[in-house]
């Protein structure tokens, strides 16, 4: 019997080691994090959602914003990665417990966790990206009017489509994704009142295979330009578009994805998460912190299309000029981009 138990012990010890290697990805970015901090140095932390710090998109962009702030002011930074829902509360309160002055929660999934943690640590400041913060002076919520950028993407796709059908490939349905979708559809409507938008969702954010199949299905449906906002599944969708080659374009999301398939990604709808994180951090460093809600869009420079490094020559100058004027009209408040199904149904495209 004793031998069996010894074997069990060894096996589970090994298993435990492997598990901790897998789970324990929370790393301090600054090795001196627990060292002797000077009293005046600000400490700012960041908690990622399940996609991780190097998702090539959202979390990474937030971390880059924080690194930029660090380079310019006396700030000490650290991030914690979350792997599942249960980690949010642990990570947020962990950083607050360690005495961080400001903690960023990246992603609307952390709303509930933040509500609890922010109340428990009134002296710590919290900022949530894409989500609503609890109504408390130590919290700020950073939101984007993504629909404005999606509108421009939809307009461009609508004008460039040869088949008069364009596609939208989403990740998982949510009110946030709906804003992407309806903004895009409103833009398409503005380009051509008769153009068709094929809307399909992958059903999650990680399935690259399914992402590709969704894109193939959309193209079988006649769409020749696909706006892809589907997380890692989106990589598969953009692959599908690139494989079909000339005549088909993808449109990237969140950051400049134009170089994923040079010449086949028409543009990307860029969301300035880095700029938002940088702005809040700088405000705190300058002593001008204010809670509440900050919503940025085209006007504030938080939302824009990529510079189209590889495709600009494919787009007629008249279309580019029209994009500029639409962008200006949105920023001046002359076009109110829809955010819900009802609004897009009733949307009347602006006359030129």
């Amino acid at each position, binding site marked *: 019997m004793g031998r*069996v138990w010894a*074997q*069990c012990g060894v*096996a589970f010890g090994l*298993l435990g080691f*492997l*598990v901790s*290697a*897998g*789970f324990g*990805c929370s790393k301090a970015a600054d090795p001196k994090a627990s060292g002797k901090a000077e009293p005046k140095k600000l400490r700012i932390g960041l908690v990622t959602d399940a996609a*991780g710090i*190097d998702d*090539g998109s959202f979390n990474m962009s937030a971390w880059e914003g924080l690194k930029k702030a660090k380079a310019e002011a006396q700030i000490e930074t650290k991030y914690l990665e979350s*792997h599942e829902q249960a980690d949010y509360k642990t990570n947020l309160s962990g950083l607050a417990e360690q005495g961080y002055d400001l903690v960023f929660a990246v992603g609307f999934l952390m709303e509930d966790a933040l509500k609890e943690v922010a109340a428990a640590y009134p002296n710590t400041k919290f900022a949530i990206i894409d989500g609503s913060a609890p109504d408390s002076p130590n919290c700020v919520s950073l939101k984007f009017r993504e629909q404005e950028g999606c509108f421009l993407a939809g307009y461009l796709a609508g004008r460039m489509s040869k088949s008069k059908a364009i596609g939208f490939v989403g990740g998982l349905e949510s009110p946030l994704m709906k804003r992407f979708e309806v903004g895009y559809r409103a833009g398409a409507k503005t380009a051509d009142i008769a153009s068709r938008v*094929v*809307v*399909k*969702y992958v*059903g*999650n954010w*990680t*399935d*690259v*295979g*399914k*992402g*590709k*199949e*969704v894109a*193939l*299905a959309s*193209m*079988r*449906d006649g769409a020749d330009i696909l706006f892809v906002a589907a997380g*890692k599944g989106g*990589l*598969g969708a953009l*692959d599908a578009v690139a*494989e*079909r080659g000339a005549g088909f374009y993808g449109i990237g999301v969140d950051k400049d994805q134009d170089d994923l398939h040079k010449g086949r990604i028409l543009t990307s709808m860029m969301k300035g998460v880095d700029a938002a994180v940088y702005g809040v951090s700088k405000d705190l460093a300058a002593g001008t912190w204010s809670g509440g809600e900050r919503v940025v869009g085209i006007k504030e420079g938080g939302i824009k299309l990529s510079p189209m490094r590889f495709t600009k020559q494919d787009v007629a100058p008249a279309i580019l000029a029209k994009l500029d004027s639409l962008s200006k009209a949105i920023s001046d408040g002359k076009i109110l981009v829809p955010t819900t199904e009802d609004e897009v149904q009733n949307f009347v495209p602006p006359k030129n």
Partner: protein
Amino acid sequence: MADVATDSIIASVPFLYPELRQAVPLVLAACGGVVSERAGVINIALEGCMLTGAFVGLVAGQSFGLAAGLLGAIAAGGLVGLIHLLLTHRLGVNQIVSGVAINLLALHVTTFLMRIVFVRAEPPREAKLAALIPIDLFFVACFAVPLLLQLGLSRTPLGLRLRAVGESPESARMAGIGVLSVRTLAVVASGMLAGAGGAYLSMSQVGRFSDDMVAGRGYIALAAVIAGRWMPVGAAAAALVFGLLDSVQLQMQGTAGLPPEILRMTPYLVAIVAAFALRSKPPAALGAPIEPSRS
């Protein structure tokens, strides 16, 4: 059809092609599930075998070529199967518990390795293949494997032994069958088939790896095993139907009013209904541990 992808001869059959693309990994993994369960071992670890196969296939494929990648994926799947067997038959871990633990472990280990090998490498690399394994190879496998397995299980001495072990390990042992060896063979083969399914995902369907890319296909394959009444051909047919449903779901989205969530739950509903309606009976000794000392 000028606008259909040209990577397959079957691509010219517009109805079948997208459905098969979705069904291949389910068929291979479901066949793996049948082999293991007919020998009496519940293999919930199919998901983990697929994910490990997908990862190893991509890494090996990138460095040593597609053939080596495919072999590596199959070997890696078999290895995960072997771990499942050792945990359950050497260390007495419950088969369900071991399977679930392996799936979670595979998810986190591949995610972790993915970060090290690709994302955090200097300079960062893309987890992407320059060329894909011809999809027709998998289309052929997805018909040949179930047929061969069906024949092997019903018509060969080894098949008979495997079924005997799944029905009554005790009697099999009395008849002089090496119960543990047969189960080892079955579970390793099961992992290898699932590993091949994983290789399809990362090396033929997309040519990319991303964490959790198997996204529950291993569990759908298990549903196919039940719906197919633990027969290779039946399970493959069920997997084909599930692939078809998923493909129809994608095609209908945005054109029909049916919520995609309904179609996404269909495989599981079909499995439950099939278990009742067809009076599906699992192998009698499914999930039963065998005494290591006596086998």
